[in-house]
């Protein structure tokens, strides 16, 4: 394919669920980065499914240590590469939303603040999927998870998701972007830009998860497109803090179309859907997508 690295850096045979969005994110990101890359994983789905000893899906050097410290591990790798005079090698970190926005927040903040030359990719499926769909700070408003279940007295998660991209921009990270697996060219272009940027880069990738969100595995990409087309997930980049939207959906669909396609939102009544719609409308306005 034109402009796309034809090599596979994440081999098949890995143990991801059928229709896994995380592996789409990783596979595309690695194609954008190429073979001169070292990957660091936080504990999570991607780590577990790709390295069942004595096998590995990784075709490039890869290291995993624990859940919360991938950014610190990457900092050490960067130090070693500098010492070896291999500064041109990309260091990419893959952390899930739990490993990034919750338990990995401190080490990520440290690495970004120090200006470590690493590309951090958060593959966000909006809950702790590896441990069984528990709520994270990236779980969206209204989602039912195993620790924020909908019930007689509960409509599921009662907070809006943490805005990680904004937090990264506030760190002074020179390249910050959001992406979605449904928009592969946009995602790969952003990963390439991240690699070209000296210093740290952060990309927050939304990746639908059939198991955790409750939809049929063939709809993973469709859900991503719906997230973008309803403006539930905005695609933009912030270069030195200057925000620019990279994908402007031709039409803005009501959030209900996105919500009703997933079991995790199925319990929501009109009132809560309206709250989400208002929140999304505010965001669209803020980013100049609507008047």
């Amino acid at each position, binding site marked *: 394919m034109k402009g796309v690295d034809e090599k596979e850096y*994440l081999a098949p045979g*890995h*143990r*991801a669920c059928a229709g896994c969005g995380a592996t789409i994110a990783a596979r595309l990101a690695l194609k954008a980065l190429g073979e001169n890359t070292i990957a660091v994983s936080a504990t999570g789905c991607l780590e577990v499914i790709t390295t069942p000893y004595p096998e590995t899906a990784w075709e490039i050097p890869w290291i995993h240590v624990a859940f919360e410290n991938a950014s610190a591990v990457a900092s050490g790798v960067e130090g070693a590469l500098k010492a070896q005079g291999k500064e041109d090698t990309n260091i990419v970190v893959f952390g899930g939303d739990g490993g990034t926005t919750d338990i990995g927040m401190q080490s990520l903040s440290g690495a970004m603040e120090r200006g470590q030359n690493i590309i951090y990719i958060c593959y966000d499926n909006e809950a702790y999927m590896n441990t069984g769909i528990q709520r994270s700070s990236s779980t969206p408003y209204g989602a039912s998870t195993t620790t924020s279940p909908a019930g007689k007295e509960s409509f599921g998660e009662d907070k809006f998701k943490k805005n990680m991209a904004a937090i990264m921009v506030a760190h002074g990270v020179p390249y910050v972007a959001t992406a979605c697996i449904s928009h592969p060219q946009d995602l790969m272009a952003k990963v390439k830009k991240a690699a070209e940027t000296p210093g740290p880069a952060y990309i927050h990738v939304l990746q639908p998860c059939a198991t955790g969100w409750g939809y049929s595995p*063939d709809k993973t990409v469709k859900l991503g497109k719906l997230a973008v087309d309803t403006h539930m997930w905005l695609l933009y980049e912030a270069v030195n803090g200057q925000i620019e939207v990279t994908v402007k959906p031709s039409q803005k669909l009501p959030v209900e179309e996105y919500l009703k396609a997933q079991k995790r939102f199925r319990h929501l009544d009109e009132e809560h859907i309206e709250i989400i719609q208002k929140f999304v409308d505010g965001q669209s306005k803020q980013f100049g997508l609507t008047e």
Partner: protein
Amino acid sequence: MVKNMKSIGAAVRDPGSTRRNKTGSWRTFKPVADKEKCIGCGICYLYCPDGCITLEYDPDYDYCKGCGICAEECPVKAITMERE
């Protein structure tokens, strides 16, 4: 070559070795491509979570888990899911 190297601390010195695990056995439906209809856009190739669609747009049934994303996303409906 791998066998002669020392591997300790659960290090794996055999890149891409999950290929030994044929995940095709997970499948209940398999994607079948109609080459007549295929326009070679590469969408199925890019979206495949298992990286098991070749550049000739043939699914590699050794690894295809039958998720159906390729069939769902094919803009010309050249891929259909058929029961195994």
